[in-house]
């Protein structure tokens, strides 16, 4: 039986996708997380081994450059791949963090696969603030999220029907709370650089 493999399946949008696929799909759904012994950093080789041969690999969990390593390791070992990126990659000067740099490199790797005549279908999602998981302090953004888990799930389903789609971006509304959070990570933020 073909299988769908997802990393980071125990919380946030990863859990929503994992639960929805388990409820609706006839395929075997495999979730890989620290909680079941598949840390994408410490257990990298195990993750690759488990994902190899998957019909769809959903590269969801973020940990430094591990997402990128998984793209490179699995780009010719799975049938299709979904990669969770971030719209923050368009604003490296506004959000000068390793996270943004990692997401930029991730997007570029996906673009190169999409240009390779032998490349597998890859969907790169430029996600913005997601319900429930947008900040370490949940009170910061709970009323400010831009996209729901369901919208991300719907996008993946749409892509399985239209695998020629390679990239989808989501809106990013810069509410006052979001702006204050950006100023927290970048005290030198020039407010004229962005628009509310």
């Amino acid at each position, binding site marked *: 039986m073909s299988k769908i493999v997802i990393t980071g399946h125990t919380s946030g949008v990863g859990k929503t996708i994992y639960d929805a696929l388990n409820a609706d799909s006839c395929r075997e759904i495999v979730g890989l997380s620290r909680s079941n012994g598949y840390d994408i950093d410490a257990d990298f080789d195990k993750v690759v081994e488990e994902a190899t041969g998957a019909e769809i690999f959903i590269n969801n969990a973020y940990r430094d450059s591990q997402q990128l390593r998984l793209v490179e390791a699995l780009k010719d070992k799975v049938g299709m791949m979904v990669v969770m990126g971030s*719209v923050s990659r*368009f604003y490296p000067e506004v959000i000068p963090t390793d996270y943004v740099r990692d997401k930029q490199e991730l997007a570029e790797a996906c673009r190169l*696969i*999409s*240009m*390779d*005549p*032998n*490349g597998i*279908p890859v969907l790169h999602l*430029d996600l*913005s603030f997601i319900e429930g998981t947008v900040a370490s302090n949940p009170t910061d953004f709970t009323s400010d999220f*831009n*996209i729901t888990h369901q*919208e991300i799930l*719907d*996008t993946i389903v*749409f892509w399985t*029907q*239209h*695998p*020629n*789609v*390679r*990239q*989808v*971006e*989501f*809106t*990013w*509304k*810069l509410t006052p709370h979001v702006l204050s959070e950006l100023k927290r990570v970048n005290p030198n933020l020039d407010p004229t650089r962005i*628009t*509310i």
Partner: protein
Amino acid sequence: MKFYITGSTRGLGEHISNEFNCECFDRPVYDINKDIDNIVEKINPESVVILNAHANQLEYVERLKDKCSLVVMGSIAAINFDPEMPEYSKEKWKLEKTVQHLSEHSKYPMLYLQLTSSSYRNYQMIANSIRFWLDNPATTFIGYNINE
């Protein structure tokens, strides 16, 4: 919801026009180069304008961004520079950057489609992409494969 389109006399534009029962801004009734004021005047917040024709796309985006929902037909030439059509590539790059920036903060939903030569011929996929966006207006950009 009322749909309008520019550039609908053939190909993708004709198909999209039929799919969404669009009112068309085309010759002989409209000249999209000369009738910008008249066209903009017709649009209200319930409108969806599909900017398919390349001519004056950027100006229409600027004029319509605070008036209605927009679908903008872009091109992979924006990021894969086409040396045989340098002006076209430059214009599409500027269009893409402008729409990407505006769509993140726009009052109305805005969708940019980064078309490739193969996706450009897949009319139904493009129509389905627009339908998907109508149901999921947080989507601002859809790009298509270039490895075919």
